[in-house]
């Protein structure tokens, strides 16, 4: 069984090496930075930065579904008829929209460490517990994202008229199916611009995770800058890579928006 999983991991990493935009067969650094500081391999920093690029992108991509899902349920809680549920959801957004992202990250990182340590020592395990920086970053960024996301989705929910729900019930659909078949498709269309902004903010917030030691773009370029004393070059490169990510996501969002709006164009 472990052979099976390692084969899958092998295949995934081989695939990632193939499509790597920086150091892959069609990579920018491989073709245009042959003998410079940015070369791939042992002589340059290209491959380290390529790993950082991958880590940043995968952290953002892994956080997105978590944040969207939690944010959706918080938005549902906020418009519920139950007072206690509304109050609990409001406390959640107030806290996580008010705290600096960096502080949230530290609180999650050290807090989880203490919590896990106490839990394991209660179970009889003695030893140091280290929380994975990727998981801590995912939770911290996901929590912040979901707090903002719930506000965006809430205002989108309010833009959908009551008649849509009533029509769903009149057709004999129960609550869940009304939500899935009637409300959600309209919700996505209304909330998409707001969610696009949140995605951009998430992409930029991933840079903070370098502070707790995750080898993302900023950390890898920072190491390179310290070793080579070419700080300006490497931090400019970091800015450039973030700009590339921002540009790619704006292109993707324009395409998605056009696709979900295709029913409106016909009119």
């Amino acid at each position: 069984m472990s052979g099976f999983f390692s084969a899958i991991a092998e295949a995934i990493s081989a695939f990632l090496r193939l499509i790597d935009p920086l150091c892959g067969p069609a990579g920018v650094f491989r073709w245009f930075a042959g003998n410079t500081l940015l070369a791939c391999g042992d002589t340059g920093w290209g491959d380290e930065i390529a790993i950082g690029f991958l880590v940043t992108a995968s952290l953002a991509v892994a956080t997105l579904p978590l944040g969207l899902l939690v944010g959706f349920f918080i938005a549902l809680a906020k418009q519920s008829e139950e007072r206690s549920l509304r109050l609990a959801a409001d406390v959640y957004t107030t806290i996580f929209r008010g705290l600096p992202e960096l502080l949230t990250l530290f609180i999650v990182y050290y807090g989880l460490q203490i919590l896990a340590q106490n839990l394991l020592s209660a179970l009889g395990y003695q030893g140091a517990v280290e929380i994975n920086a990727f998981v801590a970053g995912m939770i911290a960024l996901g929590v912040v994202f979901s707090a903002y996301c719930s506000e965006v989705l809430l205002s989108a929910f309010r833009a959908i008229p009551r008649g849509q729900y009533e029509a769903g019930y009149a057709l004999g659909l129960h609550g869940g199916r009304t939500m899935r078949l009637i409300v959600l498709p309209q919700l996505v269309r209304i909330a998409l611009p707001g969610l696009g902004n949140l995605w951009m903010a998430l992409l930029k917030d991933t840079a903070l995770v370098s502070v707790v030691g995750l080898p993302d773009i900023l950390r890898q370029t920072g190491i390179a800058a310290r070793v080579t004393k070419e700080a300006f070059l490497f931090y400019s490169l970091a800015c450039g890579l973030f700009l590339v990510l921002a540009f790619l996501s704006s292109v993707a969002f324009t395409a998605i928006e056009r696709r979900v709006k295709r029913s409106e164009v016909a009119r």
Partner: protein
Amino acid sequence: MSVVTTLIPPQAPPPAPPRPYTLSRFFGSVALGIWLALAVGIFLTVVNGWDPDKFAKYGPSYLSGLGVTLLLVAVSISLGAVVSLPLAFARMSNNKILSWLAYAYVYFFRGTPLLTQLFLVYYGLGSFSAELKAIGLWGFFRDAWNCALLTFTLNTAAYQAEILRGAIESVPRGQHEGAASLGLSKRVTFFKIILPQALIVALRPYGNEIILMIKGSAIVAIVTVFDLMGETRRAFSRTFDYQTYLWAALLYLMIVELMRNLWAWLEARLTRHLKR
């Protein structure tokens, strides 16, 4: 013939039916219970770990850190407002090159993380120390506080320029035309007619930008400026006490909530002539 001689005395309304115990009520109680447990847990940690010495030692440094944070935000927001004016005009101008340059500036500062920009200014420009010494600017760039102030000013100028541009463009054409038909000059039109209406539209985004700056300013702790976050990190590295972060969280939450409520009041006050 029957005559009603006595009226039925007024009856009490029927008792309200008991509230059904729904799923959402269950989840609400669970969620509130979790928050309550967390609050009690945090309170107990603080009470158990209460140390008057630590409080006397780090309390004042927290307050000074708070002062540094507020000063940094206030100065960079005001300087950014000054820089954002020409930037917004350049963005709206008919000159292709000028508007493209302003767009590139805004795209760069809004598309990259503030932390990267800070590193670029502090470490990146720091690597040109010889050149900077030659033109006499090294004294400015050597200090982390100056670098942070410069970065934040440039960053918030980009955001504020976009806010200002959106607000000015949201004022309807008819306002320009009305002013022109009254024979007002361009200057008077802008300052007396367009800008007051634009600023009301821009009020809410400005408030959000200030709150974002307060939260964003926490990253200066990484380049050794001792703001609230910096003092927190210093206290944590000396005591290894988790409480230090909780106190910082409390202070940040207080400032942000205060700012939010203040801004809501200000907005209600300034737009009271628009209420119907």
